[in-house]
Every structure is written in structure tokens, then in C-alpha cells.
């Protein structure tokens, strides 16, 4: 009886299935080992069991940089004036919020330049910003400091014609104007 059951079991496809699962587990183990080894020898290894730092935490060093900048004048613009200026092709509107917020809804024609990623993304946008006749930056609302921070950073880079739309996306939304979604 035992021999009968053993023979029936070993003839079933289960044996093949177990073998396949074992081989798949081996491939995953080998690949995973390579990945962890590569992380260990990397110049900037990713901490394994630690959640990625929140954007808010990354903002602190940037806040120090902005605080040390000379506070040059940053004129503000209201919503109606922004709507008129936006039609001018030489005006560039920059969104200082995080990328995810930008994609979920932004002022039509605005370009995303998150203030927390300024030093990474400014290089790509430098030519376009320098060519603009006027740059208008905005954030969420008057309480959000990112718009002013972005304006100050741009001025520190030599971009003089910068204005701040103080009301932010919340005022734009409140007025019922259309939002662009990526």
C-alpha cells in the first residue's frame, strides 16, 4: 500500500510543480542576493528597513539655504492679473509644489519645479526660465512658503523678473478656473 501511494504521488505533476517552485525560489534568492550585495558596495546604499525620507524631512536643509539667501523684493500678482499675463507667450508660470500634487491639477501652462528638487531640476529648465520675459511662481495658498522660497532661489540664480502669485492654486480653484491634469 505504501509503495502504491508513493508511486502514485511521484507520478503526479506535483513533483514537477514542486521542482519548478524550487527553481523559481532559487532564481529569486540569487537575484535578491545580487541586489543586496550591490547595495552594500554602492557609494550611497539605500537603508533597507527604513521608509524613504518624507519630502517634508528633505525640506529642512533646503529651508536653511533659503533662510540664508538675501531677501530681495518679490512682488506679488493677483489672480486676474495672472490670467492676463499667462496669455503672453513670454510669461512662464512655475509650480513650486510636489510633482504628485502638480500632476493632480495645476494652472494650465504651468511647469513643475518643486522647490524641494530645485537644485536637481533647475539645470534642465535654466534655459527656458532665462529666456522668459516674466516668471510667476505659485504654491498652495498664502500660508505655503514654497512659492516665495522658489522665487528667492530663482533670484539668487540671477533670474530677476520673478513674481509671486500669492493666492496659490487654492485661490485659482476657488475662482472656478480650469485646472490642467497630467
Amino acid at each position, binding site marked *: 500500500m505504501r509503495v502504491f501511494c508513493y508511486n502514485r504521488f511521484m507520478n503526479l505533476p506535483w513533483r514537477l510543480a514542486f521542482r*519548478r517552485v524550487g*527553481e*523559481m525560489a*532559487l*532564481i*529569486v534568492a*540569487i*537575484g*535578491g542576493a*545580487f*541586489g*543586496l550585495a*550591490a*547595495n552594500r558596495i*554602492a557609494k*550611497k546604499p*539605500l*537603508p*533597507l*528597513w*527604513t*521608509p*524613504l525620507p518624507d519630502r517634508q524631512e528633505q525640506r529642512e536643509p533646503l529651508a536653511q539655504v533659503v533662510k540664508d539667501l538675501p531677501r530681495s523684493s518679490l512682488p506679488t500678482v493677483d489672480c486676474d492679473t495672472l490670467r492676463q499675463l499667462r496669455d503672453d507667450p513670454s510669461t512662464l508660470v512655475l509650480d513650486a509644489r510636489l*510633482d*504628485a500634487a502638480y*500632476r*493632480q491639477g495645476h494652472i494650465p501652462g504651468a511647469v513643475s519645479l518643486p522647490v524641494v528638487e530645485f537644485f536637481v531640476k533647475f539645470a534642465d529648465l535654466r534655459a527656458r526660465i532665462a529666456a522668459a520675459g516674466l516668471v510667476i511662481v505659485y504654491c498652495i495658498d498664502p500660508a505655503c512658503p514654497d512659492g516665495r522660497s522658489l522665487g528667492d532661489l530663482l533670484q539668487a540664480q540671477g533670474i530677476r523678473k520673478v513674481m509671486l502669485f500669492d493666492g496659490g492654486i487654492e485661490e485659482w480653484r476657488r475662482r472656478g478656473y480650469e485646472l490642467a*491634469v*497630467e
Partner: protein
Amino acid sequence: MSWQWSETIAWLRRPRVVMLSRWVLGGIFVWACADKIAHPEGFARIVAEYRLLPARLVPLFALTLPWVELTAALCMLVGLFRRAAIWLLSLLLLVFLAAISINVVRGLAFSCGCFSVSGGAENPWLLLGRDLLFLLLAAHLLAWDFSRHEKPSRR
């Protein structure tokens, strides 16, 4: 009509066609994992944006997944544990399809991270269509890619 089907199936079973499918699928996965291996933090941020994994598991997943893809693709191409590698790649494609579908239903705009970690939000329907094509390739291999020693015997 049935005559055309059998011709198609006969063509699909040809060793050279199966080999071409194998090289295409393997090449796709090798290409796909290159940027992810080079930029693990960028890929980890994309994985985090999917909001499907606990935050603590995101770095481990982002570090190991590209290497698992690479290992499986190379195994499939060189013929080591080929069937298992094809099964694994098929499973990965199903997981990717599920992840993209969940975020489509949620209405999130997200970057796929499939081939590059620096891209912006992509059209999710194009992503789904592309992954389905890859899954068809994998299904082709599952159906007809057997090595000499693995060919199922007729009893």
C-alpha cells in the same frame, strides 16, 4: 478556417520562432532592469508612489526586484532553469499588470518605472496594453518552449 489555425500554431511551434520570442522577452527584461539597477533610490520612490507596499518594505523590494528580473532573464536566455525562469517572468508580468490596474482604478497618475526611473506620468492604458503583449510572449514560451530534456513525454 481551422486549416489556418493549424498553420498558425505550426508556425508558432517552430523552434526559431520560439527562440525569437525567448530572445525578445529576455532582451526586454534585461533592458528594463538596467536603469532600475543604476538608480535604486529613484526606483524606490516610484515603488513608494504606487502605495501598495508597506513603507518599510519598499527599499528591499526596489533593491531586489530588478536583480531578480535580470537573473530570470539571463537564466531564460542561457537555458539554465529555463522553464522556471519563464514562469517567474510571467508571474512578474501578472503582478505588474495587477499593480497598474489597481492604480488605474484608484485614478492615480503615476510613473510606471518599467523601463526608466526618470519618466513622468504615463498613460496607464498604454502600459496595460504593453504588459499584455509581453504576457502573450511569455504565454507563447510557456506553451512551446521546452528544452530537449524537458519535453513532456507521451505515455
